[in-house]
């Protein structure tokens, strides 16, 4: 069954077609990798799917429901979570508080409901559990502005998980982590997927992404170049050319 | 004919706004600071211009003195007010700027007295010309001429000279400009210098037009300058010019047609709010 579907998505910036007529479907339970050389339009496509950018044309469906114009916070409430490529922590909160904010969705859904709720013990326990799971429990009570990038990247994943998502879209979650941290987070992504969360992953770390993804989509010059089983896709000549060409010109 | 005259008066005010707003756009474009304290620079220009005119009897001397005083004050405000707090959130610089503005309003009151000063020989004010049934005085004509000349000079500087190109490069990408050997800090001083000289000259002109220089004369025009840069769309120089003229004309007609419901300042800000509700990115801004 299809969980997320993008139909004929296009967007242009000042005449340049950043994404042109891309359609894709993400099945429930999938772990899909979205790859492509720099400037291929991966992040833009992700932004169209998540609603950060409204598409010029095309539609996005979540469980068959058209969510193209739905505000981001409503999508998050439906279980559609995302992380940003560049970490966006609440800088003046601790890591635990950052995750607690996401865990408190039921309370903060209406301002008036939030006004009468003070107790945060349940959210804190949940936040600590998630930080533990991501291996950063030791930073729980440090301010976000004072911890290294590796912590923030993983805190961001914890924050997305605190939403109890059914669909998780991760924009380069492994960037900025060292090899050991990256492998550990990649393994966790596989675990989460096994636990029932559908995951879409934009990633530059091809080694990890081909290892964990069950299907790859390749984007090139704003259009879909190919898709399929990771090893088969990576072996294709046109995919190799796209990467090599991009590297030569970069 | 009456409507044509209103249009003309509006455009004349628009020219004055443009001289004020261009500087605010430059500062905003480079530093993301809403430089409210530009009003202080404007008022200082007017006072020094007036004192110079009354002392020397020459309006040319008045403009030079006003421009020099203003041109000195602007960079000083940058150095001592903004530069130490550049890395803080924009709110901090805005509040500091408001602090300078209101403090100096009383400062001028202490220095030059509360009631305002007039030019002793304001020949431009008394010299009037009539054509096609419309009457203008020489100050109004000079306002238009000065604005056109100075803004054209600025356009040539920005597009045709090495310094201008360096300056634009810095506005669009400071780290990149630095890697090409451009002194970012130097560009900032130049920026404040240009903005302040324009404001100082505008101050002298407005002083001549009203034949009055008073402590609070800069505030409203500075607030409107800020409204104009928002209207024009964020650091867009052509947008700023269009918005300046549009605001001048809207005010001019508005004070006639809306006289029973709103005053002049309210009309200006109503225009701002209406435009922003329709086009949040401003008149010529891109989304």
């Amino acid at each position, binding site marked *: 069954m299809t969980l997320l579907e993008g139909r004929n998505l296009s967007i242009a910036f000042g005449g340049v077609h950043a994404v042109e007529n891309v359609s894709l479907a993400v099945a429930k339970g999938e772990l899909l990798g979205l790859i492509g050389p720099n400037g291929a339009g991966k992040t833009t496509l992700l932004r169209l799917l998540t609603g950060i950018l409204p598409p010029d044309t095309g539609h996005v469906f979540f469980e068959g429901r058209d969510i193209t114009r739905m505000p981001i916070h409503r999508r998050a409430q439906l279980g559609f979570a995302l992380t940003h490529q560049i970490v966006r922590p609440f800088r003046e909160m601790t890591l635990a508080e950052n995750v607690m904010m996401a865990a408190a969705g039921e309370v*903060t859904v209406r301002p008036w409901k939030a*006004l009468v709720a003070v107790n945060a013990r349940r959210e804190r326990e949940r936040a600590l559990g998630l930080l533990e799971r991501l291996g950063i429990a030791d930073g729980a009570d440090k301010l976000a502005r004072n911890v290294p990038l590796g912590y923030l990247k993983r805190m961001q994943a914890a924050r997305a998980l605190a939403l109890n998502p059914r669909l998780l879209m991760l924009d380069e979650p492994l960037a900025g982590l060292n090899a050991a941290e990256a492998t550990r987070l990649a393994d966790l992504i596989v675990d989460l997927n096994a636990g029932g969360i559908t995951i879409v992953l934009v990633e530059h770390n091809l080694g990890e992404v081909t290892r964990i993804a069950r299907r790859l989509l390749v984007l090139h010059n704003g259009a879909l170049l190919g898709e399929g089983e990771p090893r088969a896709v990576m072996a294709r000549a046109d995919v190799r050319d796209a990467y090599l060409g991009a590297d030569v010109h970069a | 004919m009456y409507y044509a005259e209103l249009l003309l008066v509006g455009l004349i005010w628009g020219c004055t706004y443009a001289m004020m707003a261009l500087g605010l756009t430059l500062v905003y474009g480079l530093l993301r600071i809403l430089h409210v304290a530009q009003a202080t620079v404007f008022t200082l220009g007017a006072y020094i211009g007036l004192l110079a005119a009354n002392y020397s009897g020459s309006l040319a001397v008045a403009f030079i003195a006003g421009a020099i005083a203003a041109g000195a004050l602007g960079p000083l405000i940058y150095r001592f007010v903004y530069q130490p707090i550049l890395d803080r959130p924009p709110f901090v610089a805005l509040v*500091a700027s408001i602090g300078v503005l*209101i403090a100096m309003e009383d400062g001028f009151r202490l220095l030059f007295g509360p009631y305002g000063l007039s030019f002793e020989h304001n020949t431009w004010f008394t010299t009037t010309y009539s054509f096609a049934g419309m009457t203008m005085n020489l100050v109004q004509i000079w306002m238009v001429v000065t604005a056109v000349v100075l803004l054209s000079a600025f356009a040539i500087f920005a597009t045709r000279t090495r310094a201008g190109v360096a300056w634009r490069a810095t506005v669009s990408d400071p780290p990149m400009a630095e890697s090409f050997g451009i002194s970012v800090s130097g560009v900032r001083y130049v920026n404040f210098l240009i903005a302040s000289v324009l404001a100082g000259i505008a101050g002298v002109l407005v002083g001549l037009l009203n034949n009055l220089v008073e402590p609070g004369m800069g505030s409203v025009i500075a607030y409107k300058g800020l409204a104009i840069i928002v209207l024009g769309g964020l650091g867009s120089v052509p947008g700023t010019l269009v918005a300046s003229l549009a605001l001048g004309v809207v005010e001019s007609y508005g004070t006639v047609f809306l006289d029973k419901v709103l005053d002049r300042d309210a009309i200006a800000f109503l225009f701002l709010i209406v435009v922003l509700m329709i086009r949040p990115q401003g008149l010529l801004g891109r989304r």
Partner: protein
Amino acid sequence: MDYYVSVATFAALNVILALGLNLISGFCGQVSLGHAAFYGLGAYAAALCSVAGVPFPLAILVGVLVAGIFGIVVGFAALRVREDFLAIVTMGVGFLFLGAVRKQPWLGAEMGIAKIPSPLDKWGYAALAIGAAVALVVLSLHVRRSWMGRAFGAVAQDEDAARTIGIDVAGYKITAFFLGTAAAGLAGGIYAHMTQLIIPDTFNFIQSITILAMVVIGGIGSTIGVVAGAILLTLMPELFRFINDYKLLVYGALLLLVMRFSPGGLAGLLQRLGLRLA
């Protein structure tokens, strides 16, 4: 004695105004340079009601609601413009309010509204204003501890991140505007009945900046700091003749110094000395 009672009442009104702005700017991070307009809206609405014979408590309530409803409208407008421009738009709202009131004969134009019925004596207004100020302090402290306060903090620190974790940023901003402007409306209603005369100029841009100065000097975001700032800025001109004559010079210089050396205001200063205020 009367003098002290009236100074205390004004201090309490300023506390209400400053805490209202602090809800909007300090808690929710939305800069507003037009707070005096809502003070004025409350004052005019309540005054009109009383002049028309509406009972005092109801008149005050109308003032609160009118200010709060306009606050919601401005909150919606605020959603449409980028953060930097909100300051200019709210400043514009202030000028629009003033320019509209000045031209309306039914609002007394420049002369304002006089002979507003006054049902209480000096002590009564003092008790009312101080009671309201205390209630607002309690509310502020509670908001800060509640999930609403946490969500405001998230909106203030990073709107986009707040959206991605399901926080209704628009809803919270509008709530902050409603609460803050309704508080200003309450102060306006009390002020109008106490002085029995209101004129447009009382609610001008300088008044907005004065309220902002109380918030910023006390310490933006800190309830206790803001209360201290409001009281301090009310008392200073009363204590020193020079400050009364050159209020703007002193307020302006204080704003500049605080921004330059202690952006956290008095509360930030105390915190650096090891005292943490709520």
